[in-house]
């Protein structure tokens, strides 16, 4: 059983590059402002979500262990 994650996108940073949505459309989706939202933190494997976070060109994606609060990215 995969551990639950808390995933969010900082909209002060997000520039709508949309690589996260392209990589993991089940987890990230652009909103009406064309900024990314984490719509389903359980939408893909943890390793894939961390990879998407790393590929954010402006480091706008944050990932935590939802139970312990441990920061997983960055």
């Amino acid at each position: 059983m995969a551990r639950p994650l808390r995933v969010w996108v900082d909209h002060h940073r997000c520039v709508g590059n949309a690589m996260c949505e392209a990589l993991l459309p089940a987890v990230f989706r652009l909103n009406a402002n064309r900024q990314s939202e984490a719509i389903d933190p359980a939408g893909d494997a943890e390793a894939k979500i961390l990879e998407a976070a790393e590929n954010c060109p402006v480091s706008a994606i944050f990932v935590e262990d939802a139970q312990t609060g441990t920061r997983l990215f960055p």
Partner: protein
Amino acid sequence: MVTLPDDMFTADVMANPYAYYGSLREADPVHWNELYDLWVITRHDDVVWMTRHHELFSNAVFRNDPRAAYPAIDESDLGLYEYVRDYQADQFIQHDRPEHLEMRKIVHTYFTPRAMETWRPFVQKAVQELLDAVEDHGHMDVMKDLATPLPVLVIAQMMGVPPADRSHVRKLAEKLLYIARGEHDRMKPLTEGMQGMIDYVSPLVEERLVNPGDDFISVLASGEKKGVFTRHQVLVNTSLLLLAGHETTINLLCNGTLAFMRHPEQWALFKQDREGLAQRATEECLRYDPPVKSLQRLATRDVDLRGKTMRKDDRIRWFISSANRDPEAFVDPERFDITRDPNPHVAFGSGVHHCLGATLARVEGQEVFKALAERFPSLHVETETLEYQPSITFRSLKSLPVAWS
């Protein structure tokens, strides 16, 4: 309405783009320029909206714009312009989705913020060596002695270009910059630069296809093996990254240094807390006098904006220089304030075409400004008159003489 002559290529506009585009932003932010047959967009919110609606504004400008080059070129050079169009059209930045996404994926991962951070020690060492070389002179030309050699050295290292070839690459890059200039006979140096780049990078690409390494040319060459790039696209994009990987940073370093020198109180503030302010100061340099002034698109359908209708296939140019000084987006926008936060400038654009090398440019800017403040705290500009390259795209000083004691 606008009282200045409506021409983006005049000497006045090149010297000070902020007055001309600022007056347009106030009077007519979605402006039809008769002379060059294009829309001029100057508001921050419009630029952000347009960059994020890439499906409405195509990047495939050279492939799909049927109009003549502007400003006009010699009639005898029309054949050369076709060569330019074919060359430019193969750049990945001149593509739209879905092709753009597949091409960007090939190069995107190489430039992640974390990957670029690993280059910071290399950048620091290179900056120190360049400053060592001029320290005893008491003066330098920031453009020639620091702002040009540093980014050329870094991108050449990333791409595995031998040190002995760097000056050749820079000479070719200077010819490629004619793409954004207004001279009627500019096609000759431009096409010489393009052909020179193809000739130069061809053997490097061929070698990396056989013996891939961890350099960036190997990354591009892998795109051919995956069927995403043709060989010509690999060659053109290798040339593009060699150029874009340094020309923009050159202008960040020069324009940023000049902004500090013209605002001594900000320079004094920065010297008190270099580490603490380097990040925000570099963002403010990017906002205040951005390296790239404007970018062009083609409308993919009729689009209404502020009571105007941009028709399908119309040419559009949006002005980062103006958006970054929009009072609707920034408090006191004409003020150079290295503590500004938040700073939602659009120096790197936004949306799916957001600058691939943004983090690298930031690292180089931060390290240069810190090192200058540490080693040459008495730095000052040594000239009354500054000249800019007559480019519609790049905000580029010809030289920036400075001295220290």
